């Protein structure tokens, strides 16, 4: 049975499901309800099928490769390669897409009558199919097609809520950035083509020895920029915090959960699979990029009060953590330490899986909140734990997972990442030890700040009292939205508890890459579900889970039977000094984050806007209200993108002077061109 799924026919069925979903929802464009059910049910079915395909390819003894159709272009072949790495990413994409689609059935209902659901469903199906194609393409040109389809489809999804001018701007920024990234990728593939004479990955791989080091390095830099733009490495991340809030929440969940991971996938594919062996500095660059992205990402998240932007910045942070694993893998490989490299790669793959689950959960939870309260501003939320207890619990689960608290899955992948970094400190010499020290330090720091950030986010959104009228009238989301979120929360816990087995599977996945061939190194053992990092240290998730349960139980009983033995607990209202409690008494998320931001003001360049409104305009003795706005100046815009834009504009105006409107000048141009060409030819 698995052979059928992981075959060309199985894959065609997969694509057909999405194609039918896309075409059908366009047909039903007139009827929102039909379009909704049609598109999302087919997306569900497709994702489910995709999971089977992925599992089929994972258990297949050999990579599944096939070619579909033909094209008028000789270099373009619709060839697919489902090796275990691709299958793993297919699985992650399908898994998240499945739950997001379930969630979407109820979520998109609030767009009824406002925007066409048909187009949403159309691009949604195309988008998922595009991601699946990206992960399975085995031809550079075909990959580029899939990549662009994915990007353009997601662009249309981002601007779906098109009445908001801000969303249009976000979409514009997103497409510009992603297109610039694609330009770099195209350049990289063209260089590879120039050296190997083919766009086929297999040909590039086998011709890898012929590529000169200079070209290799150029390809590395180009594709790091290209894929890094999609993944959201700082400073290429600017589109991410803009596009994620603009998109509908299930799209944000997919974009943040899996789409940015396609950048990681391609980095693994190109660096590890196609270009190996490589020089040492590649890994070091990746480690630095990871450390910077992780730390800055979480800092920016802390300063954010838009809940979806906050989550978007956390995606940047987690991409940084994934890159730390990947970077250490590359470094170890070039230092001839393949077993350690395997550890690093497993860590990054595991974190990819984990981040996909909890980040999509968080986005879906945030979507449920926004759907009820119609605001993304955390300063206007609050107290929702009483109104939406299930959502609060789900969001808490996601928060704990992303903050790397055991027994949730985030802890174990970060633990693995730490292990590989510590191994780097222990096993390498002075050439690279500094970067591992920096990376480990930044990862530790990141973990702490992430926790602070989610204390802030959860507290501001769910605890205390509602800060706006809308937040007071929130209700628990409807069935399908919850049905999409609960399994993700369960998976976050499950992947934590059985992380030993998951790590073992991932070791198999990573081990099939050609660079690891010939190293029989069962490095990570999963006896009784224990993850062990080569005798250096180990952690046993089920034991951790049990210990936590026991500790929780022990603390509870100790307090009940030792300290509170004689005391009786009574519940009364909060003492309010006679005044009624108002939301204005609560700490704001800005206030919560302020102290941490001010510590890092050297990096973050916060801007503070204070304004006082007085009752008495002339003397200004009696203030009526005070307002403090804490903002983070966008140094990437002011230092990188704005100057580039200005430069382009200057050149443009310069070039436009050519079109002066004077016909004499025009004739002169012709003459000049003639003389120039004649001079050149003689």
């Amino acid at each position: 049975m698995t052979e059928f799924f992981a075959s060309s026919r199985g894959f065609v069925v997969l694509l057909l499901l999405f194609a039918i979903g896309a075409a059908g929802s366009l047909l039903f464009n007139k009827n929102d309800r039909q379009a909704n059910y049609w598109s999302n049910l087919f997306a569900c079915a497709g994702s489910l099928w995709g999971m089977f395909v992925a599992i089929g390819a994972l258990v297949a003894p050999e990579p599944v490769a096939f070619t579909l159709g033909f094209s008028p272009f000789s270099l373009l072949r619709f060839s697919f390669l489902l090796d275990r790495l691709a299958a793993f990413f297919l699985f992650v994409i399908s898994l998240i897409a499945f739950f997001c689609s379930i969630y979407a059935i109820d979520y998109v209902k609030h767009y009824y009558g406002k925007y066409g659901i048909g187009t949403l469903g159309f691009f949604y199906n195309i988008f998922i199919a595009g991601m699946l194609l990206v992960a399975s393409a085995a031809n550079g040109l075909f990959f580029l097609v899939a990549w662009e389809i994915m990007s353009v489809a997601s662009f249309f999804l981002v601007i779906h809520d098109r009445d908001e001018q801000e969303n249009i701007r976000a979409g514009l920024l997103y497409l510009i950035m992603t297109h610039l990234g694609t330009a770099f990728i195209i350049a990289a593939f063209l260089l590879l083509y120039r050296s190997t004479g083919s766009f086929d990955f297999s040909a590039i791989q086998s011709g890898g020895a012929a590529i000169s080091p200079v070209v290799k390095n150029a390809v590395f830099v180009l594709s790091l920029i290209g894929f890094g733009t999609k993944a959201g490495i700082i400073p290429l991340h600017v589109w991410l915090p803009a596009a994620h809030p603009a998109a509908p929440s299930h799209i944000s969940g997919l974009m943040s959960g899996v789409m940015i991971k396609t950048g990681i996938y391609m980095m693994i594919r190109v660096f590890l699979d196609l270009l190996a062996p490589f020089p040492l500095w590649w890994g070091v660059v990746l480690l630095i990029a990871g450390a910077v992205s992780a730390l800055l990402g979480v800092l920016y998240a802390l300063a954010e009060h838009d809940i979806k932007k906050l989550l978007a910045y956390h995606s940047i942070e987690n991409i940084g953590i994934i890159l730390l694993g990947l970077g250490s893998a590359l470094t170890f490989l070039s230092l001839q330490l393949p077993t350690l490299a395997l550890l690093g790669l497993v860590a990054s793959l595991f974190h990819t899986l984990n981040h996909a689950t909890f980040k999509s959960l968080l986005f879906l939870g945030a979507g449920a909140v926004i759907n009820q309260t119609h605001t993304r501003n955390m300063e206007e939320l609050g107290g929702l734990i009483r109104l939406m207890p299930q959502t609060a619990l789900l969001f808490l689960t996601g928060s704990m997972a992303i903050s790397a608290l055991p027994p949730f899955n985030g802890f174990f992948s970060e633990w693995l990442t730490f292990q590989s970094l510590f191994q780097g400190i222990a096993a390498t010499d002075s050439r690279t030890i500094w970067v591992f020290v920096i990376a480990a330090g930044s990862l530790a720091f990141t973990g702490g700040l992430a926790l602070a950030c989610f204390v802030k986010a959860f507290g501001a959104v769910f605890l205390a009292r509602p800060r706006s009228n809308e937040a007071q009238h929130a209700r628990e989301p409807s069935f399908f939205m919850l049905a999409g979120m609960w399994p993700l929360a369960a998976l976050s816990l499950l992947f934590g508890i059985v992380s030993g087995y998951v790590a073992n599977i991932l070791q198999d996945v990573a081990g099939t890459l050609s660079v690891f061939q010939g190293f029989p190194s069962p490095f990570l053992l999963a006896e009784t579900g224990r993850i062990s990092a080569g005798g250096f240290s180990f952690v046993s998730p089920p034991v951790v889970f049990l210990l936590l349960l026991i500790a929780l139980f022990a603390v509870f009983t100790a307090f009940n039977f030792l300290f509170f033995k004689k005391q009786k607990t009574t519940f009364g209202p909060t003492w309010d000094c006679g005044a009624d409690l108002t939301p204005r008494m609560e700490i704001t998320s800005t206030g919560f984050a302020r102290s941490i931001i001010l510590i890092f003001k050297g990096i973050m360049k916060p801007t503070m806007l204070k304004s006082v409104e007085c009752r008495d305009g002339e003397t200004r003795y009696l203030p009526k209200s005070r307002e403090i706005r804490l903002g983070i100046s966008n140094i990437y815009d002011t230092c990188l993108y704005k100057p580039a834009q200005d430069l382009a504009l200057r050149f443009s105006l310069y070039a436009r002077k050519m079109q002066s409107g004077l016909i004499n000048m025009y004739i002169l141009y012709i003459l000049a061109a003639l003389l120039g060409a004649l001079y050149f030819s003689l």
Partner: protein
Amino acid sequence: MIRLLRKTVATPSPLISIDPSACERVDISVVGREIEDHVKRLFRGSLAIRQVDAGSDNAAEQELVALSNPFYDVERFGVHFVASPRHADMLMATGPVARNMAEALRRTYAATPDPKFVVALGDDAIDGGIFRGSYAVYDAVKNVIPVDYEIAGDPPSPRAILCALLKILETIGANSLN
């Protein structure tokens, strides 16, 4: 509630009567030391009092404030006036309980953790004093919340309050022995 009722029944007259002239003669430091002893024993060295102004004419407040001045300085005996009923062992309610303040008094009482003692301070708080019968007052603190002890006087002098406090503490000590 039943416990409180039983308590009020068990103490038929909460009024702490003291001989003013006898009180005039005593040395504050002696009274204070005795108070300190009791506070140490009963309250582990610190008696926290929350004063509630339930529509008082501020006479009683003046005297209570005087307790904290350098002359009397009750803090040295372990008696503190605190800012929140959540921290208080004892409530001192003054005034005839104006209608607007009744709810505040009730809430303060509810917010004070058990075990707690309520002292009505001054004649207004005991029976309304000169305001008795007015449409605007409830006449007495005990009409609004259960009162454990009463300190008479219009207003009682700081010295009288100290003496009465000593007596209250003695009573509490005696009750707790029972």
